[in-house]
């Protein structure tokens, strides 16, 4: 205060004004100066646990791209999708976007992602790098738009100590085995009520999850919730022997054999607490067990026929040097070393073929069921159609009602009626959207 007053006394007001103006101009000049010519790209991800992976990739690119700066913005999947909807349509989205095919299709239809340059397209189309399933998951109308990166995939988790106690030496190999094993593995109190479920089935909770898990089981019998015809349309056609077998297996386990109940703890936490002997889930459970129940004795096994897969690819938006840098980043993310790092440190499964997993499998044998599957193993995915979530939610509502109805367990005709109603409802939804196959 004093110094300012003194300054005022000693300097004329015009000099002060000039000094002030000079400072302001100086600051403005610095602010307006062009930024250093470093290239910056952003990566938007829907899986916060993947942020370290993208940062690892960026770190590895430093030698070849010293001026490239990569900003990773990862947020939970639903929020990522919301942010993307506005960001892409307004041109404010990141240059590298990680997205599952089922969500990416709507943006591909509207030309909001860049088509892959020739070298990247050739890389994706090379069968040595990706099988047809993953190539198609990154393509639209025969053109490659994305670089396949990782996937969600299911396998069976089973408690080896409980298997040993029940005299079981191998994991179940067909669906009939699953019920037999569940019976043998269920632990009961003096009244016969189950205290540890033999096989944790998804009987309650989020609608989409219930329908998806039912679909996984029905797929093992050779049937799907919806199937595509040659003309690209869809139809539900599971009210048959296979569909009945899948639903009947749930009902038998819940009501007849009582190997599991709706009220029992379920899913990964129940498995980690040894409240269930086996259940079907994605590979993330391995990391979860390592953190929460490191002493749990367990193993994994492939499913009898195949698994649901949610393929995720990297898509690029933007132009010029930014787009070029973005493609370079996507390609670097697909380097074998980086993909192995991804599996080892994050637990998501790379989509690229021909990777050498031996070192990782030695340390984490539970991953074998996810990456080391038989040649005949089949993958299926949620269809990329608008009403898919409504189909799953409505199916789940009917399934939940059926699971709670003991009268259905021994009545095949009643099970068939449930399946027909479920099928009709799905087909009505498909018809409403103009997607129903003849």
């Amino acid at each position, binding site marked *: 205060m004093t110094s300012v007053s003194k300054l005022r006394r000693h300097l004329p007001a015009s000099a002060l004004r000039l000094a002030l103006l000079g400072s302001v101009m100086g600051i403005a000049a610095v602010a307006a100066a062009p930024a250093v010519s470093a290239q910056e790209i952003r990566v*938007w991800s*829907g*899986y*916060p*646990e993947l942020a370290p992976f993208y940062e690892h990739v960026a770190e590895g690119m430093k030698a070849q791209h010293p001026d490239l700066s990569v*900003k990773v*913005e*990862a*947020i*939970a*999947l639903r*929020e990522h999708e*919301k*942010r993307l909807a*506005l*960001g892409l349509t*307004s041109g*404010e989205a*990141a240059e590298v976007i990680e997205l599952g095919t089922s969500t990416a299709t709507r943006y591909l239809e509207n030309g909001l992602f860049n088509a892959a340059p020739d070298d990247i397209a050739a890389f994706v189309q090379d069968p040595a790098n990706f099988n047809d399933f993953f190539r198609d998951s990154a393509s639209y109308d025969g053109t490659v738009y994305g670089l396949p990166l990782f996937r*969600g995939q299911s396998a069976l988790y089973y408690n080896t100590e409980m298997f040993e106690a029940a005299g079981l030496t191998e994991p179940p190999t067909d669906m009939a085995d699953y019920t037999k094993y569940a019976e043998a593995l269920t632990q009961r109190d003096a009244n016969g009520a189950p205290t540890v479920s033999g096989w944790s089935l998804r009987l309650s909770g989020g609608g989409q999850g219930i329908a998806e898990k039912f679909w996984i089981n029905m797929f093992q019998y050779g049937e799907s919730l919806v199937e595509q015809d040659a003309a690209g349309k869809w139809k539900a056609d599971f009210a048959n022997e296979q569909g009945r077998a899948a639903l009947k297996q749930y009902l038998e386990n819940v009501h007849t054999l009582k190997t599991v109940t709706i009220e029992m703890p379920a899913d*990964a*936490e129940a498995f*980690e*607490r040894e409240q269930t002997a086996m259940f079907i889930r*994605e590979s*993330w459970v391995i990391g*979860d067990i390592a*953190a*929460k*129940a*490191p002493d749990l004795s367990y193993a994994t096994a492939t499913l009898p026929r195949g698994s649901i897969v949610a393929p995720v690819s990297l898509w690029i938006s933007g132009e010029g040097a930014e787009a070029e840098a973005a493609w370079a980043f996507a390609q670097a993310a697909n380097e074998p070393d980086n993909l192995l790092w991804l599996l080892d440190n994050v637990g*998501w499964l790379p989509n690229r073929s021909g990777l050498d997993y031996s070192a990782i499998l030695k340390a984490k044998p539970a991953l074998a069921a996810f990456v080391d599957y038989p040649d005949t193993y089949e993958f299926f995915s949620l269809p990329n159609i608008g009403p898919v979530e409504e189909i799953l939610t409505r199916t789940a509502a009917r399934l939940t009602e059926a699971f709670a109805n003991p009268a259905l367990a021994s009545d095949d005709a009643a099970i068939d009626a449930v399946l027909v109603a479920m099928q009709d409802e799905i087909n009505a939804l498909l018809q409403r959207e103009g997607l129903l196959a003849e």
Partner: protein
Amino acid sequence: MSANPSTQSGKRRRMRKLLVDRSIDLILLVFSLLMLLPLVFLVSNGFKTPQEMLAWPPTIIPANPTIDNFAAVLQDTPLLRWIFNSILFAVLSTLAILATSSIAGYILAKFRYRSLNVIFALVLATAIVPFEVYMIPLYFQAQSMGILNSIWGLLLGYLVMSFGIFLIRQNVIHSIPDELLEAARIDGAGELWIFFRIVLPLLRGALGALGVLAFFQAWTAFAWPMIVATNREAYTIEVGLALFQTGFTVDLGRLSAASALVLIPSISLFVILRRNFVQGVASTGLKE
């Protein structure tokens, strides 16, 4: 000598009343403890290891307390930056809402123009439009103004609160007589002088209540900050907390630690302004 029957019946009545009072106290105490339990678990979980988090039945006091979750949260995320962003956003939003509500509420209450009734009806009508409905055009507005990823972008959706205008208007009507304003005008006071020296001081209670509501509205906002702030450094704390969710699970230890840290500013504000908050709840019928 036998006791007076009326005295005995009075004693019995007093005993019964005491018993009823104590029973009510006990029930309220149990409910209070139950209400506090989630908060206790939130803090407790912040100090648990992943293994202990899985323990069944859950422990209230951690067996092997650890500060790893707090350390990880503070090291791996710009949590303090997010808290700062939230505080700045909430404070500026509160000031803006107080300013717009007091000016608009006063004008709508005390100035007699037919068009003002139409404007007031429009203000009331906007109160029933959910924010999500006009969020998308607002986003494009922010984009065209070049204020995405900035505090100004955050504020764009939180400058005016139609309920605040309504609240102040009703308070002005009920607590400031026309005669008082007329007397000031006759004494030569200008409109600005009247507004700042007479109206605002008389609205102190209502503005305090509105301030608390506006602060918590901005503090707990999620959808708008999430879409308008896409840079990690520009996140508010509500958006930042979403990062503790992974693809299929929630990192409960770190989320609890972060939430416990985040509670500190909001609890402090509540303690400081609890009287205004109670008044705000009482005058709005808000249940939360």
